[in-house]
């Protein structure tokens, strides 16, 4: 699934919200590391994919009409066997049927459970005056409660990426506290720069959320991704 085909599919269906699978395909092609995520249409397909990528896996409903998947029971984590995976597929389908029966459901995304790391988030939004703006922050309470985030206007230079990471109050967390190792900050800088490039290349992207990204001492990976397109293609 190339960037062009993802965007064309959304446009032809007059959708502005990309599914997680589509969002990740878009980001992967843009050079942003994402957790391997594949679409399963049946319980058998889900189990086969899980076997191929290796347990434990997570399952998430894939639907352009469902923005908050976990709220309706559309997410199952930490599945370790074929049996658990198949059951989780059925449970998700039942939950969606019960809670949002009119939603178009593409299937279920099967992805490998990422190993634990430091949660960070990267976002892209549009300012009425300055256009696309990239946001960076630490995940969880750092963003939700402390609003400890930094912004930069697209296009970002390497130094912008470097400075916006160091600017947040929680930066010491990334340097490693309480005996933890420092995370790979250069990998986070790369993600910020790739997102900036993606926004420049595709002005039709209205919003983008990578939440969370897990940062490790070697590399970082986006676990969840959400892309929203403009209603009308901007000139």
């Amino acid at each position, binding site marked *: 699934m190339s960037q062009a085909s993802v965007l064309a599919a959304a446009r032809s269906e007059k959708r502005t919200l990309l599914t997680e699978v589509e969002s990740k395909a878009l980001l992967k092609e843009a050079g942003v590391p994402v957790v391997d995520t594949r679409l399963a249409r049946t319980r058998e397909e889900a189990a086969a994919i899980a076997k191929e990528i290796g347990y434990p896996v997570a399952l998430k409903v894939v639907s352009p009409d469902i923005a908050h998947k976990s709220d309706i029971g559309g997410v199952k984590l930490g599945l370790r066997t074929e049996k658990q995976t198949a059951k989780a597929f059925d449970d998700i389908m039942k939950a969606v049927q019960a809670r949002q029966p009119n939603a178009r459901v593409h299937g279920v995304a099967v992805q490998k459970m990422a190993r634990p790391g430091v949660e960070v988030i990267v976002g892209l939004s549009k*300012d*009425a*005056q*300055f*256009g696309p*703006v990239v946001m960076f922050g630490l995940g969880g309470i750092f963003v939700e409660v402390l609003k400890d*985030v*930094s*912004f*930069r*206007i697209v296009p970002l*230079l*390497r*130094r*912008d990426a470097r*400075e*916006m990471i160091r*600017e947040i109050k929680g930066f010491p967390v990334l340097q490693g506290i309480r005996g933890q190792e420092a995370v790979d900050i250069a990998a986070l800088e790369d993600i910020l720069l790739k997102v900036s490039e993606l926004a420049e290349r595709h002005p039709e992207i209205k919003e983008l959320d990578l939440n969370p990204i897990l940062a490790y001492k070697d590399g970082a990976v986006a676990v969840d991704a959400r892309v929203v397109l403009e209603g009308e293609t901007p000139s």
Partner: protein
Amino acid sequence: MIPDLTHKLDRVFNPKVIAVIGDKKANGYSWLKSLAHFTGKLYSVQIDENEMPGIVEMGVTNVKSLMDIPEPVDFVVCAVPRKVLPRVLEDCIRKEVGGVTAFTSGFAETDEEGKRMQQQIAERANAAGLPLIDPNCMGIFRPKLGIRHGVDQYYGETGPVGVIAQSGGQATFITTGARANGLRTSKSVSFGNAAVLEAADFLEYLGQDEETRAIAMYIEGVRDGRRFFRTLRQVAPRKPVIIWRGGQTEDGARAARSHTGSLASSMAIWDAVARQCGAIRADTLDDVLDYLKAMVFIKPSTGDRVGLISMSGGQAVVTADAFARVGLRVPALTERSYAELASFFNVIGGSYRNPLDVSWNFNSTDLAQRLLGILQADENIDAVSMEFGVGAMQRRWRRDPAFAEGLLNYLVRYKEESPKPFFITLFPGKWEAEALEIREKLQERGIATYPSFQRSANAYRRLVDYYRAHAREA
């Protein structure tokens, strides 16, 4: 975009002929009066017979139409009602004037009808390539040529400061405030609703203007943020740009909409813009003037280690606090400096670590020279900040003007010759008038002074941040 804008703005800022359209008695002929010292030829355009005698009395030639002026007109000031403005602009286009400023209000900042009319005027001006410094503004201030938008402004002088303000009031406050701090303005513009020319146009122009060495901006909103960002990124490394944004809060933003019809982005976004471009963010008029002084008067530096001279023990403590609080360092001097200090420095109640507490012993130029000389030579110190005790100094100044002049001359020489940044804190206490007198003496000769340690520290911090931002790798 107006084609060939630089050339056209050159004509607007250096006019030989100006016409004022629609000035009248009820307004106190304020536009014509503001232009009384214009070095070129001034015309009035007024068709009302009742208004004419007052204009003629001022010695200004009045004509009934712009078309009746027998020579090219470089700059036009319009003070006509909103319904008349479109017709007047047609005359300006036909006359091929250099540029127009319209004081007229009642456009996008008021109602839908005003918004529509502003749109029409902008389309017409853009189509004709007419640089319109657009409705609801005070236009330009070019003191060297006697072009003013208010009688409170000065004339006949010029300097390094360029001002770009969306508000005429702020343009006046910044330019006159800077003048009171020893800084003259090269070119200033107030551009109101920005229907045609906006902040980025003037930023680009002043960015390449040789006379202008530092730019102060007051902005409520920008139309094309992308272009503003690109322009700022180009200009800020060449010369310091100070941005004071009005409408930082929700209440302020609402006021900005009714003032200049401006849309507001969040302050976090403006912060990002300033950081990314290496511009200097200001939050108040005091900030603007403080930072302008720093950028014009104080030598460039990326060094954050400050040597402090204070007038008493308590002042030594709080001045160290003030500098440390903004992230500057107040390090110990070298052993060589301490050895030299020990040979002559009177330590009654004073200490000579850093700050150097002179305990009001500052009574000879020789002492000042030795102290400042030591700080200049000290390898642990990047910049020198000195407190000046107003009361004692003023008494001394009265009693012994020769000493005072000698000290002043020395400080000016030191400031010019020392490679290190040098500035003075002049805490007025109860001696406001006296402090002002000394402040003027120092600032007229190019030494930045601040009324508190906090403001000294803040201003120097911005200077360091500015030069560090532009020394960083891409």
